[in-house]
Every structure is written in C-alpha cells, then in structure tokens.
C-alpha cells in the first residue's frame, strides 16, 4: 500500500500579511509568531557581513537563511530582473554564487571557469576570469552531468573543485591560481562535483563516482598550501575509515570491528562506493563535520550481501583529524540507489518536548530524519513525499521496516517503487528559517521499476548492473516545494509543480522563500503560507540554488543560476539533431513534455525591487 501523506494544512495563517520593511529588525517577527517555536540555527553567525555570502549554504549549519529583509512578503510582487550574466557554458548549473567584498564569484559547470564580477562598477565588469586545466576525460566519467556545486571563500582565497578531481585555490582579488592539487583519480572513475567548506584553515572536500565502483573518501587540505592533512575512506578497515577510541555510534548495529570490510563480501568494499558528493555542515562547538555517503556499488544488491558500511550513511567526523565520532546508516544494504548525501541542517529545537541539538536530513529514501547531532540518535523519521518501499523507521534501531514486495533482487522486475532512484529529494538543498521554524524543501514525486543484473567491474566504466525506468508518482504532479516541521515530522504546506523541483531553496528574514523550477520559473513565496507572491520566467530550467546579498548601493538582491542539467536534466541537456522541433532531448517517460518549456542555458539572473 502506498503511504499517501497529504497533510492538510490547518494552521492559522491569519497574521501572514503583516510584514516588516526595516532591514535592521532582522529577527523581528515578520508576520507573527513562529510556526515551530524555539527553533534556531545551531551554529554562530557565518563569517562576513550580513549582506555577504561566503560559503555554499551561507552558514556552517547549511541553513540557506539570510537576515536580509528589504524584500518582504509584502513587496516581493515588485521584484524585477536587475541584471544578468552569461557564463558561456551550457550544462547543468547547480550550486550558487558567492558575494564577498563587493565582488560576486561564479563557478561554471565543466570546464569549471571561475568569474569575479565587480559589483561596484556600472555594467558589472569582470575583475578576472580563471580557466583551470581540467582534463576533458572527466566529461564522460561523471555520471550525472558535468555539474559543480560551488566555491567557498576564506582569507582572500576562493577554493573549489574541478570535475577532473583537482582542488584549486585562487587569489580572490587577482584571480591568480595559488595552488592546484590532485585529489581524485579519474582513471578509477573518481570525479569531484561537490562544494567544499572551509573550517578554520582546513578545506574539506570529497569524491564523486558512486556509479563507477569508486571507494569514497573525504579529505582536508591546508588552506594556505593545499597540502593534504587527512583523508578518511568510507569503506575498509577501521584505520582507513578513521574509527578509533572516539567512535561512539548510537545504535548497536553500527558497532563492531572493521565493519567497513566485514559488512561486505570479500573485497567488494574496495569498489563499493560511499562517495561524498553532497553538502557538508560543521558544528564549531562540537568541532564536527557532518557528511553523507553515496549508494553502494553496484546497484545489483546480489553482488554485495551485508550492510555495506558505510554507504548510505550520515557520518560525524572531527574536523581536525577526520576521526569518526558517530555514524548512522540511513539505508543499510541499499536496494534502490538511495544515497544519503543530501544536506544536514543543524538546528537547535525542541523535539518531543525536549530541546535538542538537532540535525535535519531529507533523505533520498523519502524519510525526513531529525537526529541528535551529538550522538546520531534518530529522534523522528517521517515520510515527506509519497513513498512505499518501507513501512516506517524503527526508532529503537534506526532502521527501516522494508516492504519486502519492494525489495529489489537480481533478475526480478520489481514494479512501482516510490520514491525513484532520484529520491524524494536529491542534491537540491533545503533551507531553514528561524523566523517560522520551518524547513523549505524542494522534492520529487517519482516512482520506478527496478531490474538488476550481474555486472563486471571494469575500472573507469560504470559499475551499476540495473535498469530503473522512472515515472511520475501518485497524483498529477512530479515535484512539490514543501514547508516541513521537523519538530513534529509533518508537512505544513506545499506548492505542487509539474516537474521535480531540482533547485535549492533560499529563505529570508523578509518572510520570503525562493526556489526555481525545471521549466524555468523563478518563484517567491510567502514563507508562512506558501502563497506564491511573484514569479519570473528565466531562459533555461533552474537547478541552481538562489542566494541573496546586499549590493554596494545598499539594496538587497537575489541571484540564481539558470541552466538546465544535473541528473534530472542530464538527458534533457544532451545534444539533439538540428531538425528536431525542440533543442533539448526529452527524458523518456519521466518528463515527457519538459522540452516545450525550456532549453539549454547558462545564465546568472539577479533580481531586486
């Protein structure tokens, strides 16, 4: 039976029209009391000024919340395009710009060009353009389009990853390359697409390639020199995984010697995946970096009986040493390609009447997890999209109660598994507002059939062994932008979309939440009610993440990439013959008519009042 969980919103929204316009009253209740009380961002204010954006999710908590409040739910209807910029690249533009020192920094998909735009000058001229050496071979080695999820800034340096497995640091003022270090091995199918974070003087990066039989890792580099300080693998011996005396997982199933080997058959852990291609968070008080790990390889589960640790897991590591402090395997022995790499949002809030240092994670598997970020204990886990592969999460064990009729098996065609392998949510990051206490989550409503088969490992080729055609989920929508109460595990409101919502979210102190759609709408909604306040049709579908900043003129701006691609847009953005009616390819039955609404692109759009 499909668990359909259409929560009826019965909250009073009577106060929603009341808005403030004073930028200084950033935490004042724009529109009244929070919907979830006493929830706040779990880390201190980010480095940089209020109007800057120096790291991928704006803060270490990954909140994507800005205190800027000139643009409000009252005046958002007056938004208009202020200026635009073409990146010169036509592939999936995931990630987000940064704004530091009156300069905007962009990183494109492969070939991973970086631009520095002078915000103080009329016409927004470039300060510099940096085009790195970047092996062309990477294009065909990346599983899911040639995306890049952005840069991080610290101490005058812009740091980001190249698809071919290098990490580079560029002087933010001059664009001069400071260092370039090879971190991933392209010959073994490793690429890098994730956005680093910079913690103290350490750049934290991780690998992609879960579909290529890689052995996933996360590493820290010295910000000044690029020297590798530590590297931890997510499969293999305790020494390699950096499991030692400090490792205290909450659940007994996560305890035992060398589980990164013994939960696999033979040497399968060496090519078992567990990549770190998603977002990173950091709690400075606990000095812990939080990251997820990808699916195990291959998808054909018969070739890897066991829990397959530490794939599809959330891991907490000491930022200085990489030591594992706790681990929680979200989907043990994954049967559906449910990577656990989605962002971990660090929020302090009451759960079941008790104030907790929480970590909120919207997993590919369709459950929204509220964890204790000190211990890895699951406090709550509720479905946030239509799903049917599991009946519930057992809070005693943290493990899902799997519906065995949805368990995949070699040679067997298992039909109608929800969510699909794209997940109830993929990499598109959610946002959290301390004003409302709500999480704003871009979601997919897709299902799949799954048939796996034996597959050989051939270095540098895909290691998958399954076909999994996707279709739309129940209902006449394939995506929904929702507001989520993580204290109680319930949806508060939702905006249904005809296509999966593959852009990230931004929420501001002006009670406005922003997101984009695959068919190219950029939307502003009331953060309390979900009422769409304004929308603008951009040139190409949006898979990037909106951000906001204060310009040198004192005005608040909203910026977002337009440029369809990424895993959901990969085939759409592939090339087509010139005599076809549209210039994008349709992705089979999954998104049969998307090509009518969008085409290739690579643009930055900036909006203001």
């Amino acid at each position, binding site marked *: 039976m499909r668990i359909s969980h259409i929560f009826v919103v019965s909250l009073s929204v009577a106060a929603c029209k009341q808005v403030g316009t004073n930028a200084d009253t950033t935490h004042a209740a724009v529109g009244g009391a929070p919907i979830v009380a006493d929830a706040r961002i779990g880390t201190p204010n980010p480095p940089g000024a209020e109007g800057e954006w120096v790291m991928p999710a704006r803060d270490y908590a990954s909140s994507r919340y800005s205190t800027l409040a000139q643009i409000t739910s009252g005046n958002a209807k007056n938004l208009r395009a202020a200026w635009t910029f073409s990146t010169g690249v036509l592939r999936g533009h995931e990630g987000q710009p940064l704004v530091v020192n009156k300069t905007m920094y962009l990183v494109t998909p492969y070939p991973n060009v970086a631009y520095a735009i002078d915000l103080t000058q009329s016409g927004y001229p470039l300060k510099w353009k940096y085009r790195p050496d970047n092996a*062309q071979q990477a294009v065909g080695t990346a599983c899911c389009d040639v995306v890049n999820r952005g840069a991080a800034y610290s101490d005058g340096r812009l740091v980001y990853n190249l698809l071919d497995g290098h990490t580079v640091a560029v002087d933010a003022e001059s664009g001069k390359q400071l260092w370039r270090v090879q971190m991933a091995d392209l010959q073994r199918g490793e690429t890098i697409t994730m956005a680093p974070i910079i913690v103290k003087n350490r750049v934290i990066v991780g690998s992609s390639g879960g579909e290529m039989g890689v052995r996933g890792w996360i590493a820290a580099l010295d910000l000044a020199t690029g020297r590798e300080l530590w590297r931890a693998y997510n499969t293999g011996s305790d020494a390699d995984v950096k499991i030692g005396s400090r490792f205290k997982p909450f659940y007994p199933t996560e305890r035992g010697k060398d589980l990164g080997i013994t939960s696999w058959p033979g040497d399968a852990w060496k090519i078992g995946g567990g990549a770190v291609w998603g977002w990173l968070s950091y709690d400075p008080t606990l000095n812990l970096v939080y990251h997820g790990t990808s699916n195990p390889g291959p998808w054909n589960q018969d070739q890897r009986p066991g829990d397959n640790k530490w794939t599809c897991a959330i891991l907490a590591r000491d930022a200085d040493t990489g030591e594992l402090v706790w681990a929680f395997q979200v989907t043990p022995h994954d049967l559906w390609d449910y990577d656990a790499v989605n962002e971990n949002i660090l929020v302090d809030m009451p759960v079941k009447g008790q104030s907790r240092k929480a970590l909120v994670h919207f997993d590919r598997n369709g459950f929204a997890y509220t964890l204790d970020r000190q211990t890895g204990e699951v406090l709550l886990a509720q479905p946030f999209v239509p799903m049917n592969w599991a009946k519930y999460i057992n809070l005693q064990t943290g493990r899902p109660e799997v519906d065995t009729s949805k368990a995949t098996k070699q040679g067997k065609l298992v039909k109608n598994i929800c969510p699909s392998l794209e997940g109830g949510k993929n990499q598109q990051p959610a946002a959290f507002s301390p004003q409302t206490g709500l999480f704003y989550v871009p979601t997919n409503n897709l299902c799949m059939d799954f048939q796996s088969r034996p597959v050989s490992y051939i270095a540098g*080729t895909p290691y998958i062994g399954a076909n999994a055609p996707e279709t739309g989920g129940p209902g006449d929508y394939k995506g929904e932008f929702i507001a989520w109460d993580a204290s109680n595990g319930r949806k508060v409101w939702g905006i249904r979309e005809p296509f999966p919502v593959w852009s990230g979210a931004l929420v501001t102190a002006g009670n406005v939440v922003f997101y984009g759609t695959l068919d190219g709408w950029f939307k502003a909604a009331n953060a309390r009610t979900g009422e769409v306040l304004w929308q603008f049709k951009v040139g190409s579908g949006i898979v990037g993440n909106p951000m906001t900043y204060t310009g040198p003129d004192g005005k608040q701006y909203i910026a977002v990439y337009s440029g369809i691609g990424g895993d959901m847009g990969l085939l759409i953005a592939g090339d*087509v013959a010139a005599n076809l009616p549209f210039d994008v390819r349709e992705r089979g039955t999954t998104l049969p008519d998307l*090509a009518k609404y969008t085409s290739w692109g690579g643009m930055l759009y900036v909006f203001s009042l």
Partner: protein
Amino acid sequence: MRDALSFIALMVTICSCAKGIDTAEAREPDIVRRAAAQQVQQTTTGGQQPGFIQHLENIQPGISLHGGFAQLTNPFHGDAGKVREGASLFVSYNCMDCHGADGSGAMGPSLADNRFHFGGTDGEVFQSIYEGRPEGMPAWGGRIPDDQIWRLVAYVQSLGAGKDVSTENFTGKTIQKMGH
C-alpha cells in the same frame, strides 16, 4: 610503441578476415602523405610562409589523420547474429550503463540517433572503441579482442540505421529503461 605493435596485430587480424583490403601503406589516407610532404617543404624553405596550397580536404570534418582506421570495413557487416552478439557485449563491457539502454544516451552520447561525433563509418566507429575518445570513452584496443570490437561496431551501427525516427521519439521509448 605498444600501441603501434597492437595496431600492427590488429591489421593482421583484419586482413585475415576482411576481404579485398590492401596493404597498410596503401590505406593511409592521401592527406597524410600530402601533409607530410608539406611539412618537408616548409622545413626546406627556411621558415618562410608557405605558398597557397590547395587542400580542400583540410576543411572536411571527421577525417582521421592517423592510423588509417577510416579505410577499414567491418567483416561482420550486416550479420544479424554478430549484431546480437554485439548487443550482449554492449552489456557485458558496461557500455550500456554509459550510453544507455539500446544505446539511447545517458552519461555518454546517444549511439542510436545516427549522428556520430567522430564519424559513423565502420572504421570510425572501430577507432572510437579501439582508441577511445577525449571526453571519456575508454580505449578498448588490446583489452578486448578485435573481433569483439567488430561485433560492437555492428551492433552500434544497427541502432540508428534504418530507423526512420527522430532522436526524441526514439529516446522516448527507450531511455526509460536506463533510468539514470
């Protein structure tokens, strides 16, 4: 050097099973010899600008300048049994997980739309598999037997050939099988 040796081995294999193919030297495209001659001429004229040379071939796309692959013909051309064996190899060597079910495109480009980035003749497809291509196509030459490469060529050419459908429609029916 190893590549050269394996290429020679390849030539021997091909010559033994393909009919009517002459020597490797004769197969070398004319443009290669002319380019070499031009190189000599430039050297001997002491760095002066060379005179106008009529080489219409220079602006033709898709001509392989080395290896003579373009001159090769598939010994299995039109052999339905070999096409089926190629389809099986296409799965075994993980080609499918890059190029999609039925070659309809995924990580790698579609092979089913009759539009080949590096040319769709027997020799050009063979070369793409044998030598690999810069955007990530692995080089299979020397790793798998040449006669298997020819089976793959036969299969790949069968995907787009004779199908009077646009990429879009073709994709619509088949890419769903891949799902990634």
